[in-house]
């Protein structure tokens, strides 16, 4: 396995911290109105498609219900998250990390190939396929980087009334402000699911050298494909 690019390593940890702050402050914000709607408006719990649990203080930033401070954490980290994602995308296209390591082929997406991938993962076989990552990894990282993370930015902007005059079509495309808010919430838990699987896979593959690899870039000889 090749070493991670410096840009990848810096982005990975900056993004991890920004996402943790966004997630935990977001849970605090969710507690302010625990109902989700589809469409442009929504304020009556009777019209909600989901009633969300009240998230406990230990899971939120700050560690008590404080909408004002939670919003500060959220809206500040949002800049770090969005700008570093933009930087990561530029770097990945320039250093060809995207083209080399993250693009998949159409044949990777056939049901047979996908099934083979899942079976291999269940057997603990992670080092296969061409290049740095196996096809399932490429798909997952590609979807997270290319769709899920940008969706969080787009839906976050769409629920900001001050941003709306910039691109009203964006809010319409998402189905209205309350739909965008619902998608922001759903995206959060999709990212949380990725986080759980990601950490589980890192542990399965070898926690020590994986974390070291993402910090120093160095990988042990027996894991190096070079």
């Amino acid at each position: 396995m090749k070493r991670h690019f410096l840009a990848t390593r810096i982005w990975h940890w900056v993004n991890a911290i920004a996402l943790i702050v966004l997630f935990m402050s977001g849970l605090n914000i969710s507690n302010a109105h625990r109902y989700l709607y589809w469409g442009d408006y929504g304020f009556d719990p009777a019209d909600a498609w989901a009633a969300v649990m009240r998230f406990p203080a230990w899971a939120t930033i700050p560690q008590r219900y404080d909408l004002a401070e939670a919003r500060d954490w959220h809206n500040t980290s949002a800049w770090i998250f969005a700008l570093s994602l933009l930087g990561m995308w530029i770097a990945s296209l320039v250093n060809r990390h995207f083209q080399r390591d993250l693009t998949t082929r159409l044949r990777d997406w056939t049901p047979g190939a996908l099934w083979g991938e899942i079976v291999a993962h269940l057997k603990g076989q992670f080092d296969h396929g061409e290049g740095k990552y196996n096809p399932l990894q490429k798909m997952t990282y590609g979807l997270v980087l290319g769709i899920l993370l940008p969706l969080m930015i787009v839906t976050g902007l769409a629920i900001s009334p001050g941003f709306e005059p910039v691109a009203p079509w964006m809010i319409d495309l998402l189905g209205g402000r309350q739909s965008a808010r619902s998608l922001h919430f759903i995206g959060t838990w999709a990212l949380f699911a990725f986080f759980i699987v990601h950490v589980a896979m890192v542990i399965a593959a070898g926690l020590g050298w994986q974390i070291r690899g993402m910090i120093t870039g160095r990988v042990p000889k027996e894991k190096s494909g070079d």
Partner: protein
Amino acid sequence: MTDMKRRALLAGLIALPATACSKLAESEAGTDIFNAAESMHRLAHRTLAGRQALAPEYPPEARSPTMRGNGSLTVETDEYQAHLANGFEDWRLAVTGLVDNPLDLGLADLRALPQRTQITRHDCVEGWSAIAEWSGPQLSHLLDAARVREEANFIVFRCADNLNGSDYYESVDMVEAYHPQTIVAHRLNGEALPEKNGAPLRMRIERQLGYKHAKFLTGIEAVASIDDIQGGNGGYWEDRGYQWYAGM
């Protein structure tokens, strides 16, 4: 990295939000960073959209069944209750501060001005939204009639309601004050503004969250600085930690 170091790093990462965050948030540097981030949002919004860009307006059928009331739903003074009882015939709106021609207006005066009617979405800081039709004169008409002086930087809204012992107030800068959709609303969905929504007058600041839309309006004041008004942060909720720019 040794196991000890790794454990220390992981423990640090886990404890980070709990301890470091609360310390940082309470420090002056933390507040400065939060305010800088909010200013960046404001500048980005206004640069990308333009200062006069409009919030979306909806067709009548897009309105929500009702307009939710939030915050103060009435004013519990005998004076207000008397105004309510006689249909606000004697309600006055004062336009004062850094103006050459202070105004003292009744509801009939406001109705006599050119009116703007707009169906817009109201977004509360809590997360919910409602859509309703609002009518009233543009704030810019009042400010022009009062001849606001050059040195005015903010417009402050004075309100009759009192929350937890403090008089409600709000403020906007001149960009938002002169925005075409910034109106002094006296009608909601074709009827006189209901009590729970701020009767008889409330502001509509359509590109910002609900706490900017001051209700039970009694005064409009042009000022150079908001530093010496109540808590010095430009509004009731701003004095309680919320951001002055309520565009997100």
